[in-house]
């Protein structure tokens, strides 16, 4: 078993083979796995909010889609990844509670997924696979030796992207 690097909420980590990157219990947050298959360098971000410009406090850039991803790519490049080769896989963005009249707070999962897609597009990073939405939690693991993004749930099974 490869050694696991844990990525907490509102955090990101980068690493290379033989490490795996894992983040537990994503709900409305989105996990973004970036991977350069040639160098086997990857990064996993666990963002909570779409946009740092609308937040009251922006002291932790890893919390927001728009600020976390550029920093993570920079850190991957420092390890030796090449930006043009980096591909993205994303998961999460669920709506955990169903309400009759859905407010903005409820829809934050959807807004997170949309923001992540927009930011990646702006950064010219292609999304090759995604597992977003639904009403259930996910644990996500980026397996650095092969770039597989493994998604575990409690009763919706396990899949590999």
């Amino acid at each position: 078993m490869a050694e696991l690097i844990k990525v907490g909420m509102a955090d990101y980590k980068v690493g290379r083979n033989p490490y795996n990157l894992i983040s537990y219990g994503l709900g409305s947050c989105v996990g973004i796995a970036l991977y350069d298959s040639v160098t086997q360098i990857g990064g996993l971000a666990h963002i909570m909010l779409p946009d740092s410009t609308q937040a009251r406090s922006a002291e932790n850039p890893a919390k927001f889609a728009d600020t976390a991803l550029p920093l993570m790519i920079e850190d991957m490049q420092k390890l030796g990844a090449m930006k043009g080769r980096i591909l993205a896989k994303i998961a999460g963005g669920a709506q955990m509670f169903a309400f009759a009249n859905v407010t903005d707070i409820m829809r934050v999962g959807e807004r997170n997924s949309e923001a992540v897609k927009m930011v990646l597009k702006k950064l010219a990073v292609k999304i090759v696979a995604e597992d977003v939405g639904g009403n259930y939690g996910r644990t996500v693991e980026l397996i650095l030796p092969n770039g597989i993004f493994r998604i575990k749930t409690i009763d919706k099974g396990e899949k590999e992207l």
Partner: protein
Amino acid sequence: MLPEDVLKLTELQLDALKEIGNVGAGNAATALSQIINRKIDMTVPQVAILPLGDVPDVVGGPEVTVAGVYLRVFGPAPGSILFLMPQESAFYLVDTLMGRNAQSTHALDEMDASALLEIGNILAGAYLNALSYFTKFTLLPSIPALAMDMAGAILSIILIQLGQMGDHALVIETEFTTENDGVKGHFFLIPDPGSLGTILQAIGVKE
């Protein structure tokens, strides 16, 4: 001061919030005790200011399965209430409520879910009564919603709200336990942006 910044709360303000938590949880424990007809002990509320990412550890880590009942609070100090309990406690509660033998539930059916929602409703109402008493505000809970999933995923709904204001959460947390068979529960009260200041002002500890 910025009342939204929980790191800047004074001792006095934290004590006042703790007292509300104490009375609110006491009300809720009494209600729960009457529903399941068991004596319920509760711990003295802990008021902790935690980094957001550490909050799931309060209930055993982000990946443990928990049942959560979530309600919105309407009124002059809007916010959210989340009542979390470990999966086994949720099963124990529905077994007790439905008059079944202990440990006969392994998954929730519609009736079970409805029973848990009602419990969440009653507990939230009991808790809100305390907050209303101290603030003199009329605070009304929404219809509750239930989810059973990973603690991190369920908590994300409130942590994301808190994340808009800062990187720390003010957690007023009480644990319930029954005498022999552990029903454990955790209560989280999360004021919306601006509401914490409104509450502190109403109870006279604005500064």
